[in-house]
C-alpha cells in the first residue's frame, strides 16, 4: 500500500460515542475510493466545546493532546465534521499563538486536515465514486464548513448521485441553531432557529435532510422527532455509503 493513499480518519467525540455508524460509513466511502483508512489511537475530542465557551486554558489542554496524536500520523487527516475540522484548521493556530513550537506543529497539522466532503471534492474525477439512490434530498450546510472552511460545493456530491434530486431550502445557508453549548445555554433561541429550519425542510418536500456535522444532525434529527416530522436526517457519509450500496 503506497503511503500516499493512507488517510487518517478522525472519529469526532460525537461520532465516537453517539453515532459510530457515521465513522464506519465514512471509512467505507473512503475505502471505496481506494484509500487505506487508519484511525489514530488515543483521540478523545478536539476541544471545541471548551474553546467556543471561552475556556481557553481547558481548550488548549485538550488541543495539546489531540495535536500530539495527529502530528504523529501521516497522510491527510479527514474529519467527518465541519466544525471539528475548522477547530483544527483555524482555531488551533490561534490557541497556540503564544507558543511558537506548538503553533508551527498546529499549522503543519492544519495543512493536512480536511473535512470529509471537502476531501471527496478534492479527488480527481476518476477516483470519485457515484452511487445511486432514489430520494428527494435537502442539504443543510453546517456553518463552520460553509463559512469557516469556505466549502460551498458539497451538494454536488448529492446531485451526482443517480436518482437523487437536491431540493433547495428557504434561507438555505442560515444556521440551524445548534452551535454547541449555545443549544443548551440559549436553548429557547436555538429551538426557534431549529423551528425555522425544520419548517423550511418541511416546505421543501424533502424526504431526507443531509448535513456534514453530527452536531447539526443530532439537533435537527432530535428536533424532527420531537415535532413528529417524517424527514430522515442523515450525515453525508451515511447517505453516500447507502448510495454506494
Amino acid at each position, binding site marked *: 500500500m503506497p503511503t500516499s493513499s493512507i488517510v487518517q480518519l478522525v*472519529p469526532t467525540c460525537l*461520532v*465516537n*460515542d*453517539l453515532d*459510530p455508524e457515521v*465513522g*464506519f460509513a465514512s*471509512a467505507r466511502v473512503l475505502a471505496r475510493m481506494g484509500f487505506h483508512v487508519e*484511525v489514530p489511537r*488515543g*483521540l*478523545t*475530542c478536539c*476541544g471545541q*466545546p*471548551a*474553546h*467556543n*465557551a*471561552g*475556556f*481557553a486554558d*481547558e*481548550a488548549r*489542554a*485538550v488541543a495539546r*493532546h489531540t495535536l500530539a496524536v495527529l502530528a504523529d500520523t501521516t497522510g491527510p487527516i479527514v474529519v467527518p465534521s465541519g466544525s471539528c475540522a475548522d477547530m483544527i484548521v483555524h482555531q488551533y493556530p490561534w490557541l497556540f499563538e503564544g507558543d511558537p513550537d506548538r503553533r508551527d506543529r498546529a499549522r503543519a497539522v492544519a495543512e493536512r486536515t480536511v473535512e470529509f466532503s471537502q476531501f471527496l471534492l478534492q479527488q480527481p474525477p476518476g477516483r470519485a465514486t457515484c452511487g445511486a439512490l432514489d430520494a428527494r434530498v435537502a442539504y443543510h450546510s453546517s*456553518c*463552520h464548513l*460553509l*463559512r*469557516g472552511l469556505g466549502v460551498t460545493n458539497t451538494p454536488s456530491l448529492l446531485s451526482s448521485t443517480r436518482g437523487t434530486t437536491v431540493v433547495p431550502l428557504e434561507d438555505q*445557508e*442560515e*444556521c440551524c*441553531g*445548534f*452551535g*454547541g453549548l*449555545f*443549544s*443548551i*445555554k*440559549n*436553548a*429557547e*433561541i*436555538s*429551538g*426557534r*432557529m*431549529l423551528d*425555522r429550519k425544520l419548517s423550511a425542510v418541511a416546505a421543501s418536500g424533502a424526504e431526507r435532510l443531509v448535513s456534514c456535522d453530527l452536531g447539526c444532525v*443530532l*439537533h435537527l434529527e*432530535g*428536533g424532527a*422527532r*420531537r415535532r413528529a416530522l417524517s424527514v430522515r436526517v442523515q450525515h453525508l457519509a451515511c447517505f453516500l455509503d447507502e448510495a454506494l450500496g
Partner: protein
Amino acid sequence: MSGVAMPLTFHGRARAALSDRTLHEALDRATAQLRSRRSTALDSLEHSDYVRDVARRARMTALRNLGALLREFESRLTENGCRVHWADTADDANRIIVRIAAEARVRRIAKSKSMVSEETHLNAALERAGLAVVETDLGEYVTQLAASRPSHIILPIVHMTREQVGRLLQEQLGVPYSDDPQVLAGYARAKLRAEFLRADMGITGANIGVAATGTICLVTNEGNGRMVTTLPRVHVVLMGIEKLVATMADLDAVLKVLARSATGQQLTAYTTLVRGPRRAGDACGPESMHVVLLDNGRTRLLAGESAEILGCIRCGACLNVCPVYRNIGGHAYGDTYPGPVGAVVTPGLRGIGNWAALPDASSLCGACRDICPVRLDIPRMLIAMRQEAVSCTPQPAWLRFGMRAFAWTAARPPMYRIVARLGGAVLRQRARNGWIHRAPGPLGAWTTCRDLRAPARRSFERQWRSRTEARHDRA
C-alpha cells in the same frame, strides 16, 4: 413597547421577544428585504472584494494611528473655526453639551440620528436641563414619540409594523389613522418642518470624520441631517473617537461600502460634508460649531483583544443576517448597539461584568463575518469576549467544573473512555427505543425542544479496533 418595563436579564428579554408575533412579522419583512437589497448592491459591485479590502484598510490604519489622527483632527477642526471638546464618559459628554446650550442660550434642539447620543442617553440629560429636544430622523422621531429606544442601527423602528406606527401617530399627534408609509411620513414632515425652523441648536452624530481636513461626514436619506447642520445657529457634533479615517480618499473607500451594506443603495440620498461654522459670505450655516469627542470605554476596548470591533462603520448588515437577531430583535440586547456587533461592543465599552450573556447569544455561525463590509472577525471577538467572561465573571458550577473535568480527562484517553462509558450508561437508562425524551442535569435544556439520541453501547473506536484486529487475525 412604550411604558412596558423590559425584563432585567438578557434571557428574560429574549424570551419576551420570542413570544412576540408582531415583532417577528416586522423583523422578517424588514431584514429579508435589506438582505436581498444588500447583496444586489455590494456583491454586484465590480471588484467588490477589493473595495471591501480597501475600506477595511482605511479603518484599520486609522485605529492603529488613532492618537495621532485625533490630534490632527482637532487641529484641523480648530483651524476651521470649530470648538473641540473631549469627553471621557457619557456623563461628561452630556454635561458638555448642556453647558454649550446654556452658554448659547439655547431652548430648542433639533437632532439628527446619532447612535452615540443613544449611548450617552443625551435626550434625557437635555430634557432634565429644561431643553426641548426633537428627533428629526423619521424612525427616531417615532421612537421618541413612543418613549422607546431604537432596535436597529440604521432602522430604529424595525421592530414596529406600520400599523403600530399609524396608531402611535394617531394617539400622539392627533392625526387620522393611516398605515400608508407615505401618509405617515407626511404627518411627521409637517411637524418636523416647524421644529427645524424654531431650533436654536442642531445636534448630529458623525458617520465618519476625516482627520486630514477636519471634515464631518453625515449620510442620510431624509435630508434632515442637512437641515440640522444648517438652520439652527449652533451645531454640535457628538462622535466616538474611533469614527475617524485619515484622508478624503479613505472616506471615499468607506462610503463605497457603507450605503451598499446598510440599505443597498449605491449612495444615500444625502451625503453631507461639514467643515466648520458659517464663514463671512456664506449663505447659511451655524454661527458656531462644536465637536464633542467621546471615549466612554473606547480607549480600553482599543487596548484589548477585540480592538478590531472599533473599525465598525455601523452599517447594520450583520444584524440583518444574524439568525439570533432575527429571532429576538434589538431590544433584547439591552443596550444601544444590538446584534452581533453589539454583542462585542456592549461588553467592550461597559465591561463584561453585567453583559456576559451577550457574547454567549451566538451560535458562531459566521454570517456576520461574511457580510461585514470591513471584514470584522466578529465570531473570533465573541470567543475572546467569552474568554474574558470566563476569567472575570462567575460561571455556573456545572460548567466550570464540567470544563475542568473535560479538559483533564480528554488529555488522558483511558480516563476519558471510563467517563464516557459511565455517562453513556446513565443516559441510556433514560432512553426508550434509542431516544431520550427528558435528559437529566444541564442536558435537560437540550430536551426542552428536541429529543436526544442515546449514546452508543460500544464506541466507534472500540468497534473499529475489534473489527480491524479480527481482520488481522484472519490474515
